[in-house]
């Protein structure tokens, strides 16, 4: 079985501050990991993905994530957040031929101006 845990339901930061959103996964095989963002009243947009290679992957809008096999984690980071980054962020786990990722419960990010 595979699972994704996002331990923080809500994160509040000030504009310009750095950000880390946590994601832990459970899977015995080679994981495919994704971060998606959902803006209010919209669908899911892919921020970045990790399949293999460099554990630090770059995404859109200055986001990056680091894969750690030893910690079973895939945390999302941004050096300086903007108020427009306020949204719900979902971490997702896929595996091998599994084209149906398992999603975490999401982390709601609130950026104060």
């Amino acid at each position, binding site marked *: 079985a595979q699972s994704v845990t996002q331990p923080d339901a809500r994160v509040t930061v000030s504009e310009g501050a750095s950000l880390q959103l946590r994601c832990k996964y459970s899977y015995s095989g080679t994981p*495919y990991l*994704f971060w*998606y963002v959902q803006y209010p009243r*919209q*669908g*899911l*947009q*892919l921020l970045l*993905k990790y*399949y293999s290679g460099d554990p630090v992957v770059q995404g859109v809008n200055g986001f990056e994530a680091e894969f750690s096999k030893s910690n079973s984690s895939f945390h999302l980071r941004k050096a300086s957040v903007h108020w427009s980054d306020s949204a719900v962020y*979902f971490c997702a786990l*896929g*595996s091998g*031929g*599994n*084209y*149906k*990722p398992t*999603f*975490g*419960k*999401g982390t709601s990010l609130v950026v104060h101006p």
Partner: protein
Amino acid sequence: GALVYQYPRRTICKSGTSMRMECQAVGFQATSVAWYRQSPQKTFELIALSTVNSAIKYEQNFTQEKFPISHPNLSFSSMTVLNAYLEDRGLYLCGARAGTSSGNTLYFGEGSRLIVV
């Protein structure tokens, strides 16, 4: 780029009636389409996975009789919610996989929101 369009964006239907939603892949061939439901305050529940040349696979708690899916070609899929009731409300998302070039990445549409009254 890979784009996925969903229609309608929002539907209000009476309890016991049905709603059909469509998913269109633009700029790529959707060899697999996954339908998810995001219920209020919950994360995404996978309803079914449709792969070209394979049978549609429904997840536990979801059936073809309740959520019939059609995937007639590599750019289009539709799903109907039959006899919708309050527990069926939510945002229905279509995630389309673009062949093998992008691995297991699903590209999602904006979703079709179902409101049941």
